[in-house]
């Protein structure tokens, strides 16, 4: 399973019991799932993360790309798992049903997808984009903070943005 595989391709490979695909998906969505778990399940966050990925391993075959994006399916599954855990381990939301992508709001899916997409950039590209957008630093300020030439910052920022745009294009197609 190549690293360039789309999220939907990874889910299909996981359904066929590919551990490599599972590790790749876990690498991409680990941070995004952790954020959902922390927000919804609070102190149960770590258990929640484990449970979400265990469910992905078991239920990947239920993903249907015609019904929504992989990011939306994963977010729905993560939310339902977190809600169940936060309800004192007494399932309040049926979790054996197939998560449907359309059940979550598009802005939430976008945010969830972006968390995962940032994980697919190189460390330098991700750091520069996070400093530029989340810390509102200029390219010059980023260069000073990282102690690298300004040209490197410009180059990493361009490459990171172009890579995210390409991933978004693949996700939309």
């Amino acid at each position, binding site marked *: 399973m190549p690293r360039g595989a789309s999220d939907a391709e990874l889910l299909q490979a996981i359904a066929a019991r590919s551990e490599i695909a599972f590790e790749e998906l876990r690498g991409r969505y680990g941070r995004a799932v952790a954020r959902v778990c922390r927000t919804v399940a609070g102190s149960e966050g770590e258990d929640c993360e484990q449970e979400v990925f265990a469910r992905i391993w078991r239920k990947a075959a239920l993903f249907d790309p015609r019904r929504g994006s992989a990011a939306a399916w994963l977010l729905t599954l993560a939310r339902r798992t977190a809600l169940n855990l936060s309800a004192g381990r007494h399932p309040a939301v049926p979790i054996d049903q197939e998560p449907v992508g359309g059940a979550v709001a598009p802005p939430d899916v976008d945010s969830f997808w*972006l968390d995962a997409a940032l994980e697919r950039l190189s460390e330098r590209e991700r750091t520069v*984009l996070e400093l530029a*957008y*989340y810390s509102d630093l200029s390219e010059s300020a980023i260069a000073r903070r990282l102690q690298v030439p300004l040209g490197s910052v410009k180059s990493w*920022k361009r*490459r990171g*943005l172009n890579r995210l745009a*390409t991933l978004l294009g693949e996700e*939309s197609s």
Partner: protein
Amino acid sequence: MRHDDASARLPDLLADRDDAALLAHVRTCADCQRQLFLLGRVDRLLREHASASRPTRARRLSPHRLLAFAVTVAAAAAVVLALLLLRQAPTHDMVLRTASGQAVGRAVMSHSDARNDSLALTARGLPIDRGQVFVLWAGDSVRPPMQVGRFMVDRSGGCRVHFNLPATHTWGRFWITRPGRSAAIVAST
């Protein structure tokens, strides 16, 4: 400019649209137009994501820093308000309609700087049966039509784009055509 060079530098257009050579390439390159459209979406996603995570940080500010921040914001707001009151740029708001009269977009002209006017084009429901790239034209009763630029819409026929126009005279009319079919007007003010 070679395509590879232009493609690598496309993110520059998110912040600065004055690179004439790059813009000239983008106007003729469908791949770059699509990538630029996606870059715009990525830029918006990152900004939204960043602003959504900022309130959490604000709660961690100490009272002293919070007060300093509030004073700074108030001062900035006062300066902006004063500037707006002193030189309120006139805006010109026009509706773009198809031949059947259906409103499909808005074009809002405003003063940008001494040499440029800014045009914000917002469209919704443009027909995409023959592709998602369109051309925006500007004209008046005196000069021949001028091609303002190309733009790309999403799958619902919607877009939000900005163009700069020379402020040398008043542009009275705008219309949209398909690339290479300047006589077939899709919508017009």
